[in-house]
């Protein structure tokens, strides 16, 4: 469907030339195979649309998991100058701080063989999944404001996990500048019941085994070893985040004409970073981000309890440890060298993961010598990859890499394709036990609906923005 012609820069990058009112060109990270898939949807046009926004620096970027979103493409990265640049709620997305968390255990596959089904059932019973599921934690209005201000710190203070977990959570699990006063009553109401829930759609909790190690040094630093059982959690800020995005999007659309910014798509509604409305959005968005970190922290704690109880083992024997927690839907003020000068920029990552290199001050002390872990979940059958951030990401992608495989098939197409098939049985044949709230979810999320994860990760690896550390194979998965 896309008529935009891209110019091949090298094996992993394509240039989207600057035309019309675009303020900068675009760069899409893709190999030939992924490039060909771009022809079938509107995602390339969305990369071009983002390039129209004021204050955009260098390029409108897209990672190899790029696919058609709304406003920004999924897999999009764009940085805006604090002076004259904008912030866009649609550039973060509805699920503010949707992200991943990886935990290692002291267990090997043999330790849980024969117990996987019981363990998965226990996880499914304990962890609220599905649409409108209500959480384990019921919040008073006062407590909820603390969650929005403190994020994962609140969860740890209230007995969910340990202080150590905060060291290996992006931004310590708390984005500064959060102001609950900027969050609407509607968003607060939706958030009250949903802390400690997984949600639906592509959100999941997966038990995985470390299948391959590509980088011994980084794997050692991350505490990963071949044959080890690990757990990946993928979820975000639930209804609270969706409502914050929607409220500010409506507000910005309403006042867009006052900004004088012409938009190629209303979903890109934005305001200047220096404006009060822009600042209020960032303060509300930080609340959404903090809620998501508290959510994943609580889910990790529940997971640990289920493992201990279901396997009848002590915490020390289980040895569950947080490797890292990253967000992949966010706008953050970060520093980068632009033409040799250090500048503060507002980096929008919509379906993209931060990928900071060794030595960066934001990388936890224990990973300083290797770089930040980058967690890349794949489809239910493919498992996941763990990568490590590289210096080249600082030079080319505002310290960012991909966030997943990226959809290639629409949900309706996937449901049609899966009709008459048992996706859970097909996955079971591949050694993956899946428990989901509905057959529809399994159909929508079937492995063929996604790009080949190996291709996506290889592009990021070969482009040098993040390097492969380990590959994980799924064993069991719970979904909404």
């Amino acid at each position, binding site marked *: 469907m896309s008529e935009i012609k891209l110019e091949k820069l090298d094996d992993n990058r394509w240039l989207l030339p600057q035309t019309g009112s675009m303020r900068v060109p675009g760069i899409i990270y893709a190999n030939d195979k992924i490039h060909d898939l771009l022809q079938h949807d509107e995602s390339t046009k969305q990369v071009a649309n983002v390039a129209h926004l004021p204050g955009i620096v260098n390029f409108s970027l897209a990672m190899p998991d790029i696919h058609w979103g709304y406003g920004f493409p*999924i897999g999009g990265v764009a940085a805006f100058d604090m002076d004259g640049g904008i912030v866009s709620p649609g550039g973060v997305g509805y699920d503010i701080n949707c992200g991943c968390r990886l935990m290692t255990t002291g267990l090997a596959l043999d330790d849980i063989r024969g117990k996987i089904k019981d363990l998965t059932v226990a996880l499914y019973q304990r962890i609220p999944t599905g649409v409108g599921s209500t959480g384990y934690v019921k919040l008073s209005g006062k407590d909820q404001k603390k969650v929005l201000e403190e994020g994962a710190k609140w969860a740890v203070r209230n007995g969910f996990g340990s202080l150590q977990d905060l060291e290996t959570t992006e931004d310590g699990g708390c984005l500064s500048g959060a102001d609950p006063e900027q969050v609407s009553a509607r968003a607060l109401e939706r958030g009250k019941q949903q802390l400690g829930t997984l949600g639906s*759609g592509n959100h999941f909790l997966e038990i995985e085994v470390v299948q391959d190690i590509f980088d011994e040094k980084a794997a050692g630093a991350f505490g990963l070893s071949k044959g080890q059982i690990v757990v990946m959690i993928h979820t975000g800020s639930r209804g609270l985040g969706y*409502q914050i995005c929607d409220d500010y999007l*409506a507000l910005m*659309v309403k006042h867009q004409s006052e900004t004088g910014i012409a938009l190629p798509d*209303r979903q890109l509604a934005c305001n200047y970073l220096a404006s009060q409305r822009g600042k209020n959005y960032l303060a509300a968005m930080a609340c959404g981000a903090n809620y998501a970190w508290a959510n994943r922290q609580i889910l990790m704690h529940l997971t640990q309890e289920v493992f201990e109880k279901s396997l009848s083992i002590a915490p020390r024997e289980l040895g569950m440890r947080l490797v890292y927690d990253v967000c992949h839907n966010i706008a953050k003020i970060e520093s980068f060298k632009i033409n040799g000068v250090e500048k503060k920029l507002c980096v929008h990552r919509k379906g993209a993961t931060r990928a900071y290199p060794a030595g960066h001050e934001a990388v936890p002390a224990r990973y300083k010598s290797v770089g930040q872990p980058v967690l890349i979940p794949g489809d239910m059958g493919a498992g996941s990859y763990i990568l490590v951030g590289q210096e080249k990401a600082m030079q080319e992608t505002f310290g960012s890499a991909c966030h997943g495989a990226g959809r290639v098939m*629409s949900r*309706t197409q996937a449901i049609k394709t899966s009709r008459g098939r048992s996706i859970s049985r097909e996955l079971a044949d591949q050694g993956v036990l899946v428990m989901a709230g509905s057959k529809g979810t399994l159909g929508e999320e079937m492995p063929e609906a996604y790009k080949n994860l190996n291709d996506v990760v290889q592009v990021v690896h070969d482009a040098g923005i993040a390097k492969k550390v380990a590959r994980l194979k799924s064993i069991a998965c719970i979904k*909404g």
Partner: protein
Amino acid sequence: MLSYTLFDHTADIGVEILGRTKKELFAHAAHALFDIMIQTTFHKNRKSRGGKGRQLIKMVDGADVEDLFINFLRELLYLFNGKRWVVDHCEMIECSNTRLIATLWVEPYNKKKHSMKTEIKAVTYSGLSVKKFKSGWMARLIFDV
């Protein structure tokens, strides 16, 4: 006339809605939203619905007809996501390009009665169009799921 059809979108759900009049277009959009989300019976007329449940009067504003359309669906989505109401009949009392007044018949969400089909996170402006044709009105929009 089929009130709505789905079109393919990689990550989300694209919907095309038809109506003989603008009021009907908006009522059909309300039907589409709830029909995609949950297993329910959306009544096209008040008689078939009967008198049970509650009635809500909603007034919605928008900068233009497209914005009004999105804001209307936003309100309906909030009724479900925030208040756990299921809208099963909708009558438009007034509908200009920038303001509407609608009566909504609602009943509380009941897990056993209304099994979930798809969670809709939001109603987006992406690729949005609301247009009048000779024979009626058509809207295209994308739901974030």
